[in-house]
């Protein structure tokens, strides 16, 4: 292959580093009205009275919007395919506020200063209600967070709002309780994972204007422009045909922009006033009022026979979706569907539990999407089981884990909120990943640990899987048109949020069309100009959108060949990407052909559109190994190296794929080591700035070793699966296992801080 799987700089990297206007706010109209939201100081309250008379009189204030200005239409903010598997439990503005940071009202003014003055003049009277702040006490709590009759599910997801249950799920294969009684060794452990903040560097922002066709044109920092268009149309009762959503460059998302943020209010202001408007979230608003990761409590029971064969897997999960139920069921299900099949040969498996409402910042989509939480619990439990069995963690996994050509009944049972899709693992190189990883980290000589005086060196590992798009639901499409001068436009709905999909899709097209990347010009994510794509989530872009591009490029190749056959008067025409030649040696260049059909003869525009929906979701797999030096007296950890051996099929862009894994590993290490969304006793977010919420810095990351194994997934474009999320899953368990191997203390709640380690060590010493 000449383009795919070759080092290719991104098509936009140079322009961006040189500072060209590229991100959403760079394109805001200079005269935009500023929309500023007043945010609830209470975790749960009813708005009794709003006095905005003084504020509305301020010169420069356009309007004050309250719940009375909107018709009562419930929707979900989640950017998912319709009908969404998330409950419709949100109104544009409501009489109730359900978390500290929830929208109370909005002021609209000429500039930020006057908006802040106006906010200070508005008096709101609340009836404070008893908040639910402990997710373990949410079910059947006397305080009901969504009593409103309009809230509903689009199809059965176990929605019981009067019990504070946003969703629930239960599946089983075989009789897990019976199998456990037949096991020689059983362990049962409970784990906690915390909420994590995305901390994408670009805060959420959106701006809107009316164009000269009197249509609402929105520039949005989003992962899902098409879903945003639909939800705005639904909630504000604006015809879909009157809305255009454009996604410029996005400064990071990681799932945090897979849902409505400021779009609703900004769209309404522009639509109503005819004037351009914008909203930029402050970093505080991003922390408090966007989304974070679902915190979870997971109880894992594993049963094995004494030879180490895993026979039973029981997994009970409780998830906290916060004040609104975006992504509640689907994240929950991924805890099972993209974790449990790792040990596919068990006799019985059960996965069940509930997703509850609390008066916390809403949880939403976040890279890993349940797999990282489930992985921490399962892969920690596996190591605990290994110790009881007296078996090495590597040996146990090699014996029990998923292998190529195998399957798991879970694939058929668990899908995206509904039933799933059966599939055989046509590609699964886990064995090789584990073997290679143990060599790269020198497991043999470092496991379990090496005493170094004040410090101990140790290693720990975990395996993981994810998915590649959602079969039978995620659709991507691509349009390719030929220009004069022999270059192509590639139009895709697919959403580049920094993961490099623009580049990867260009590479796929260029490979098929046997040309170079500079001859394929991509334009993406504009609901008017690009064909539909579900958006950047579920690791779908390379696999789903890539397959659409693959199809379209092949159709374009056939289309140009058809013209060439006509022009060269022959059925036997060969094409090398630049020149067409017939059996008599007569030729025409693509450039000349394109100019001819544009201007001179038999003029036509060659343009093809192709779509793709997956029939399977071939999982990428990986083995992650961490080497740490840990201070015996303080618990402080140095991450010496993190080895990732990944099977993601073909790496369309090897360096960008490596970058995806690297970035995800570091984000996973952040969650494993110190990132912590912290609430006060009254439910307000303490960690609401970068001063109080820390992410890994470059000094924290000493070295990363990321390698890919040879793997070719036939159903993927040029053999590719996906690589966007898999990297984030292993660090928490790998670290927990390494700490145990070093010091004999097992930390079962994230983050694994030096304080937790030291205090556990002291407690152990006292026993």
């Amino acid at each position, binding site marked *: 292959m000449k383009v795919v799987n070759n*080092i290719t*700089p*991104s098509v*936009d*990297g*140079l322009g*961006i*580093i*040189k*500072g*060209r*206007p*590229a*991100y959403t*706010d*760079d394109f805001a109209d200079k005269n935009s009205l500023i929309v500023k939201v007043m945010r609830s100081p209470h975790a749960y309250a009813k708005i009794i009275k709003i006095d905005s008379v003084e504020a509305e009189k301020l010169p420069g204030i356009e309007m004050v919007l309250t719940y009375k200005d909107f018709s009562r239409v419930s929707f979900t903010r989640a950017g998912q395919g319709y009908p969404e598997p998330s409950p419709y439990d949100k109104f544009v503005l409501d009489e109730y506020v359900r978390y500290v940071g929830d929208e109370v009202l909005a002021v609209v003014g000429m500039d930020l200063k006057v908006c802040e003055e106006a906010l200070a003049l508005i008096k709101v009277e609340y009836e404070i209600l008893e908040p639910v702040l402990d997710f373990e006490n949410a079910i059947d709590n006397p305080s009901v967070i969504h009593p409103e009759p309009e809230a509903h599910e689009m199809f059965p997801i176990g929605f019981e709002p009067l019990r504070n249950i946003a969703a629930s799920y239960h599946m089983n294969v075989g009789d897990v309780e019976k199998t456990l009684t037949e096991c020689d060794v059983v362990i049962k452990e409970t784990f906690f994972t915390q909420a994590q903040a*995305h*901390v*994408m*560097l*670009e*805060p959420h922002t959106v701006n809107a204007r009316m164009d000269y066709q009197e249509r609402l044109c929105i520039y949005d920092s989003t992962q899902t422009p098409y879903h945003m268009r639909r939800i705005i149309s639904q909630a504000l009762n604006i015809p879909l045909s009157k809305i255009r959503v454009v996604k410029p*460059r*996005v*400064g*990071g998302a*990681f799932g945090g922009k897979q849902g409505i943020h400021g779009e609703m209010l900004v769209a309404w202001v522009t639509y109503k006033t005819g004037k351009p408007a914008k909203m*930029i979230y*402050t*970093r*505080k608003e991003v922390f408090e009022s966007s989304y974070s990761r679902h915190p979870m409590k997971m109880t894992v029971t594993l049963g094995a026979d004494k030879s180490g064969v895993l026979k039973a897997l029981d997994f009970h999960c409780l998830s906290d979706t916060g004040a609104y139920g975006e992504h509640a069921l689907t994240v929950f299900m991924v805890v099972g569907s993209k974790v449990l099949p790792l040990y596919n040969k068990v006799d019985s498996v059960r996965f069940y539990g509930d997703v509850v409402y609390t008066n916390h910042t809403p949880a939403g989509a976040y890279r890993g999407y349940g797999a990282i939480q489930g992985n921490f619990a399962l892969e920690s439990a596996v190591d605990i089981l290994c110790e009881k069995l007296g078996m090495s963690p590597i040996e146990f996994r090699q014996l029990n884990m998923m292998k190529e050509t195998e399957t798991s009944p879970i694939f058929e049972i668990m899908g995206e909120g509904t039933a799933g899709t059966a599939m055989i693992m046509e590609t699964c190189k886990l064995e090789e990943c584990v073997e290679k990883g143990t060599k790269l980290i020198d497991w043999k000589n470092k496991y379990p640990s090496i005493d170094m005086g004040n410090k101990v060196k140790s290693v720990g590992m975990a395996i993981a899987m994810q998915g590649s798009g959602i079969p039978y639901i995620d659709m991507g499409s691509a349009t390719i048109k030929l220009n004069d001068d022999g270059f192509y436009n590639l139009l895709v709905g697919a959403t580049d*949020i*920094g*993961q*490099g999909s623009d580049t990867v899709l260009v590479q796929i097209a260029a490979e098929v069309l046997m040309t170079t990347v500079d001859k394929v010009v991509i334009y993406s994510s504009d609901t008017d100009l690009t064909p539909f794509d579900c958006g950047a989530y579920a690791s779908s872009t390379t696999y789903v959108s890539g397959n659409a591009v693959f199809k379209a490029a092949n159709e374009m190749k056939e289309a140009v060949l058809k013209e060439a056959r006509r022009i060269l008067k022959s059925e036997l025409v060969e094409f090398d990407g630049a020149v067409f030649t017939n059996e008599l040696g007569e030729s025409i260049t693509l450039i000349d052909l394109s100019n001819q059909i544009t201007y001179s003869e038999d003029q036509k525009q060659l343009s093809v559109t192709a779509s793709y929906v997956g029939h399977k979701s071939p999982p990428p797999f990986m083995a992650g190994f961490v080497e740490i030096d840990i201070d015996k007296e303080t618990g402080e950890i140095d991450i010496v190296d993190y080895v990732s051996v990944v099977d993601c099929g073909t790496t369309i*862009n*090897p*360096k*960008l*794929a*490596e*970058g995806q894994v*690297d*970035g*995800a*590993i*570091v*984000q996973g290490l952040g969650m494993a080591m110190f990132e912590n969304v912290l609430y006060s006793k009254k439910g307000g977010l303490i960690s609401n*700035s*970068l*001063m109080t919420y820390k*992410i890994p*810095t*470059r*000094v924290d*990351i000493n*070295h*990363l070793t990321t390698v890919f194994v040879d793997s070719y997934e036939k159903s993927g474009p040029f053999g590719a699966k996906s690589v966007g999320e898999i990297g984030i899953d292993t660090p928490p368990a790998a670290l927990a296992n390494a700490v145990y191997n070093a010091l004999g203390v097992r930390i079962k709640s994230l983050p694994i801080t030096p304080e937790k380690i030291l205090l556990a060590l002291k407690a152990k010493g006292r026993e």
Partner: protein
Amino acid sequence: MKVKITVNNQEKIFECTPSDYLLDTLRDNNYVSVRRGCDTTNCGVCTVLMNGKPVPSCSVLTVQADGKNITTVEGIQEEAEKLGKYFGAEGADQCGYCNPSLALTVYAMKKELVNPTVKEVKKYLVGNLCRCTGYISQERAIMKYLGDKS
């Protein structure tokens, strides 16, 4: 009030109030490569050079920059392109939001540190956060850029 600031070797007169921060004044005057990432001086995204030294433009009052030289990435295009090519070769070009400010800081670092080690580069750039790359690819690119004496 009016302030006189030399931006990228061009003398400019900006209209501002004593409460305005350099970041907003620059953005309002079309230097959109200078961007905001946080409210608390923690991310490095807003970094510009003031008299050649990296400073957080979100925390420098426009009036404090009166009479000073400011460099945004528009003022170091050749160096940014050179660094950008190394980023592209190493796969360090992801969302890009931190890149212009990183390019400026690297440019200042190149003048301040002689043949730095990776450790020294990490320390100098620690205030430039990145959430996408995991840092390693950026550092490979930066070391190669520093080693390129052309």
